[in-house]
């Protein structure tokens, strides 16, 4: 493997309360240049926190309590904030889940793009405006030049998200962390955005962490996929393996719950129960209370996400039995 662009080693994050709560526990992930890594898992599993930790954008009660984060051969979780600010936006960019929080309602889309572009690239006003129009066009906004003068609320939800993606691309970053970037988009635009991210990854060697709950998107775009559950890595492996032959009982449940065209089911298969709250995690395997295969051992011993014979990492005691 080429030297990883991003190397997350045993990352742990806690919510600093009177009694600190573990939000992410011992997560390790590597990302090569030009690689697209999908991150899936239910809401609250820790996907966004993982992204925020890399960006060092975690807010107050959240704090990194263990592990290291390396970017392009240098450790970044310990560098001064001033250094991090230079990386952010320019080298590492983030596309957020909620397009409204990323856009300022009182400025036109053009003003916001021009400002971001000029922060990162040595361009004059006119050149930056041309670049802004080109970026809007690249993300599929029609009449890009005219649309520069519109305010965010004059766009539909999907169009706003495309504007947000254009903003993230403005500094020509080497790593993009995209947190649910296409959740609000319809399939055809989603396909365009995903194709755009894939193309940027391949042509510029840009690494992409794609956080999404859409397994279809994962299937089309990603090289590998990580399944998170309750702040822990449940399974990590090549997309084909995880999606067509999921091994962790949680991954199996997730994939069974996806509606398929033509299936004509009355009801969708559901994983019973809900993900436990962070302050009420069971002692052993976090999935044990919902797992159809649970064994006595699981209730007291936590399984590690160990690489198995074929390289797939699975945190489940069933794997040990084989």
């Amino acid at each position, binding site marked *: 493997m080429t030297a990883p662009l991003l190397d997350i080693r045993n990352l742990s994050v806690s919510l600093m309360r009177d009694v600190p709560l573990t939000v992410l526990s011992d997560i390790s992930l590597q990302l090569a240049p030009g690689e697209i890594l999908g991150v*899936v*898992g*239910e*809401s*609250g599993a820790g996907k966004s926190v993982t992204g925020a930790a890399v960006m060092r954008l975690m807010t107050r009660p959240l704090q990194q309590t263990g592990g290291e984060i390396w970017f392009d051969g240098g450790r970044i979780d310990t560098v001064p904030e001033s250094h991090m600010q230079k990386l952010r936006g320019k080298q590492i960019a983030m596309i957020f889940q909620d397009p409204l929080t990323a856009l300022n309602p009182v400025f036109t889309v053009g003003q916001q793009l021009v400002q971001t572009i000029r922060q990162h690239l040595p361009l004059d006003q006119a050149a930056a405006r041309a670049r802004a129009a080109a970026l809007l066009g690249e993300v*599929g*906004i*029609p*009449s890009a030049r*005219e*649309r520069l*003068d*519109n305010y965010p609320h*004059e*766009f*539909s*939800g*999907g*169009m706003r*998200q*495309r504007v947000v993606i254009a903003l993230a691309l403005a500094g020509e970053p080497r790593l993009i962390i995209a947190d649910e970037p296409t*959740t*609000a*988009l*319809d*399939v*055809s*635009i*989603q*396909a365009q955005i*995903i*194709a755009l991210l*894939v193309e940027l990854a391949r042509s510029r060697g840009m690494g992409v962490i794609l956080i999404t*709950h*859409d*397994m*279809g*998107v994962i*299937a*089309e*775009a990603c090289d590998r996929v990580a399944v998170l559950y309750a702040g822990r890595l449940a399974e990590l492996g090549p*997309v*084909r393996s995880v*999606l*067509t032959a999921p091994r962790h009982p949680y991954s199996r*449940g*997730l*994939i069974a*719950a*996806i*509606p*398929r*065209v*033509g*299936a*004509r089911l009355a*009801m*969708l298969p*559901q*994983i019973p129960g809900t993900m436990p709250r962070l302050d009420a995690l069971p002692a052993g395997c976090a999935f044990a209370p919902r797992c159809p295969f649970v064994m006595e051992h699981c209730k007291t011993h936590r399984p590690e996400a160990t690489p198995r014979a074929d390289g797939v990492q699975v945190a489940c005691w069933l794997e040990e039995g084989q």
Partner: protein
Amino acid sequence: MTPDQLLADQAPTDAPLVSVQNLSRRFDVSPPWITRALYRQPRRIVRALDDITFAIQPKRTLGLVGESGCGKSTLARCLAGLMSPSGGVMHYAGKPVDLASKNDPKVRRAVQMVFQDPYASLNPRWSVEESVGDPLLAFGLAGSRAEMRQMVGALMVEVGLSPRDAQKYPLQFSGGQRQRIAVARALASRPAFLICDEPTSALDVSVQAAVLNLMRRLQDEYGLTYLFISHNLPVVDHMSDDVGVMYLGRLVELQPTESLFDAPRHPYTQLLIQTVPSLDTMGRASAPLKGEVPSPLNPPPGCAFNPRCPFANARCRVERPEPTALPGGGMVACHGVQEGRI
């Protein structure tokens, strides 16, 4: 259920519960008049909805799909009375509804909406009891606060939460739980028609399955009629009896779900169905819909889809295709289909 009952249930009754004729909505997105005067710029009008006509039979689900910005949410908001249309009429249970004022409390009660964003659709400063109980008090369905409290508790159970959760605030719930609360609030006034605008788009697949199963069960139990908007085609396929496809403010095709997915007629529908990301299209992100999405500010003349359509001919570039009925039920608005070329 006996097969007879099944047939009786599925046979479309003649009278639709909801119907819409020639619904239109325009937005004025012109620059300020001073800019227009100085730079001689014209007014700019977005036709978010352009002559939309359809009907939904009682207890059935009409799914609605279409590209971002094609007007799905605008349609939902007009039908829910949250926005007044620029033209057209809606009938509810056979009677015309004044969408501009929508002052008939019966209709206001009977038509409810569930939004995409469970975070935005509930007032964060209201307890769940206040949010869910509000329509009960507003429509006089609960005689006293005590009765309201009891009804809220029952609604909470109905959507798979505990009555005790009613004292909590939206921020104390997960996205899926909040969407359940939004469904409980929409159900509080005992509506017959529920408009769901991307109700599970913000949810992950496991929670989505739970919410979709909940909506299915409630539909069966209470005989609800749904307008179900989603950009996720497998989800629409799973939920809908019929599916309508919108493109740039126009309804371009409407068919029973199975026919639409098995034999889509409109070239846009065909492309949409080909580009559904699925587990079977592994590593094929390279086939997005070609061509620029036309601007709703400046739609192409004739058929709005013509710049991206592989079947476009000279007529398509000048004449707008009107809806024509399909033999198996439903309609399509395409010259190519009408001329027998597609």
